[in-house]
């Protein structure tokens, strides 16, 4: 059997083995971004921003320029880069704590200004790097190290839906939620990531792709069951669909 071009690793990905746990969604998300970078032939002018969280080391796997940001400040850093160098393609890669808790203000205001950046939001409903604490997107009743009896919405609030929240703003150009819950989900995610990056090449504006993602370690499930958790439990709270396309709100 010979390798087809499609099965080769993307040039925009380094060949380092990742530090991610078995069954983690980050490696897949990195690969989807790298594939888009290769297909759009922008490896020489793309600048990524890495968050604080499990994916803080994303830059070891991305074979292009990357800036690491302080926790939650990723969209502000990406804004600074893009404003300073408008000819570059700039994206932010963020987890749920980074994007929807400590960095909520930066997220909303970058979207509201319509910054010409793509934001990839890896939502796995839990903090990974710090050891499985409750995230802003943790599901009702989900047990974590800081919600040991399960998330109680009366005292901790319900999981926050960022696509829906950002869709109330005028300036975003494209918003979609996808899920890494199996091969079909990954194919849809690949398309969404490519669309967001292509919009940057075409100078269309702010793009936001939320990727529901498995975290077997802290979702406290086997890798296979974690895919089920994403595909069934998470999708019931975070519906996967296109919210904004070509700057227009898309009806559910």
């Amino acid at each position, binding site marked *: 059997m010979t390798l087809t071009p499609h099965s080769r690793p993307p040039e925009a990905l380094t060949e380092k083995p990742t530090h991610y746990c078995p069954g983690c969604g980050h490696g897949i998300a990195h690969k989807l971004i790298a594939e888009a970078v290769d297909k759009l032939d922008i490896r020489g002018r793309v600048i990524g921003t890495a968050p604080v969280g499990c994916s803080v080391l994303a830059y070891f796997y991305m074979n292009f320029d990357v800036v690491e940001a302080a926790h939650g*400040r990723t969209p502000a850093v990406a804004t600074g880069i893009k404003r300073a160098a408008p000819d570059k393609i700039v994206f932010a890669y963020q987890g749920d704590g980074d994007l929807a808790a400590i960095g909520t203000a930066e997220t909303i205001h970058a979207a509201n200004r319509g910054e010409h950046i793509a934001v990839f939001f890896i939502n796995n409903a839990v903090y990974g790097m710090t050891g499985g604490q409750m995230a802003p997107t943790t599901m009702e009743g989900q047990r974590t190290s800081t919600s040991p009896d399960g998330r109680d919405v009366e005292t901790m609030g319900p999981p926050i839906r960022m696509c829906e929240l950002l869709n109330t703003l005028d300036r975003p150009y494209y918003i979609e939620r996808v899920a890494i819950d199996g091969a079909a989900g990954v194919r849809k995610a690949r398309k969404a990531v490519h669309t967001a990056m292509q919009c940057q090449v075409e100078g269309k504006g702010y793009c936001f792709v939320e990727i529901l993602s498995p975290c077997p370690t802290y979702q406290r499930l086997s890798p296979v069951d974690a895919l089920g958790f994403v595909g069934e439990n998470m999708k019931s709270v975070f519906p996967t669909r296109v919210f904004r396309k070509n700057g227009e709100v898309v009806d559910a």
Partner: protein
Amino acid sequence: MAERVLMNGNTALGEAAIRAGCDCYFGYPITPQNELTSYMATYMPPNGRVFVQAESELAAINMVYGASAAGKRAMTSSSSPGISLKQEGISTLAGAELPAVIVNVQRGGPGLGNIAPAQADYFQAVKGGGHGDYRQIVLAPDSVQEMHDLTFDAFDLADAYRGPVMILTDGRLGQMMEPFELRPAVTPGTDKPWAVTGAAERDPNLVRSLYLVVEELEQLNLRLQAKYREIESREVRVEERMTDDCDILLVAYGSSARACKGALNEARAKGYKVGLLRPLTLWPFPSARIRELAAKVKTIIVVEMSAGQFIEDVQLAAEFQTEVLLENRLGGFVPEQRDILKRVEGLSKC
């Protein structure tokens, strides 16, 4: 001949930033530095530069971080409570070795304090402020002319040493108007091989402050410390007046030093042998020169608009060779010339 104009300190600083080649300014409103943010909003875009009003001081300093990582000259400004919010970003800039200019037009504290001039952020500015072992160069102007001139130096020092540089001033210097000479615009160098500009014809660049491997983080720290020792040996700047024959040495910076200059002239006219040492760099601190003078004078009077912060560095430098006294005002008061003079006269009677 240089053009002479009348402007307030905040706008004189803003005009200097534009002339020094500041590509990007990011700010958030806070009194008493608002004239600067407004000036940048008005004059940066027509000059082809970037102005963004950020959603917070946190966002502003992180936009500076992004623009600086992209290889551009970037600046933010704020006043005391806002500077506290920027500390995370300043520490990150230091760790990632990114140049940046941060202006603190100080007001009274702690907490929200008030909007009157103060020097109570001295410790925060010179001892670190944010977390971790880092230093920032701190420049202290005492006139509108220096608000203008030191801004050029701030950008050059930030680029030369790849780190944050703070201009530590106060609400009085920011808002008072004085005639001063405009400096001609400069074109800064753009050779920043570490910047993220796209990995088209080179290996990827990475800007970061996280080093999980302890050996790597120790190496970063050792490199930073070596850089700080180099700055200490090369960049100390002071102004001295009548220190050759003085018995009483006034030590002060910024607005406090202006009051000292008036008191010095009056005291000399009355026959008192008074001198003044005014640091233009608060870090690196002129310890060696203060040590030399402390060996010669009878008394050092430290004048500051804080509760004995600046005096600690003077005492450390003086090494108990002579008495070091504090003359200060708090809460937004500026020391008065007559109070300093009275202190000098009181000493001489003893």
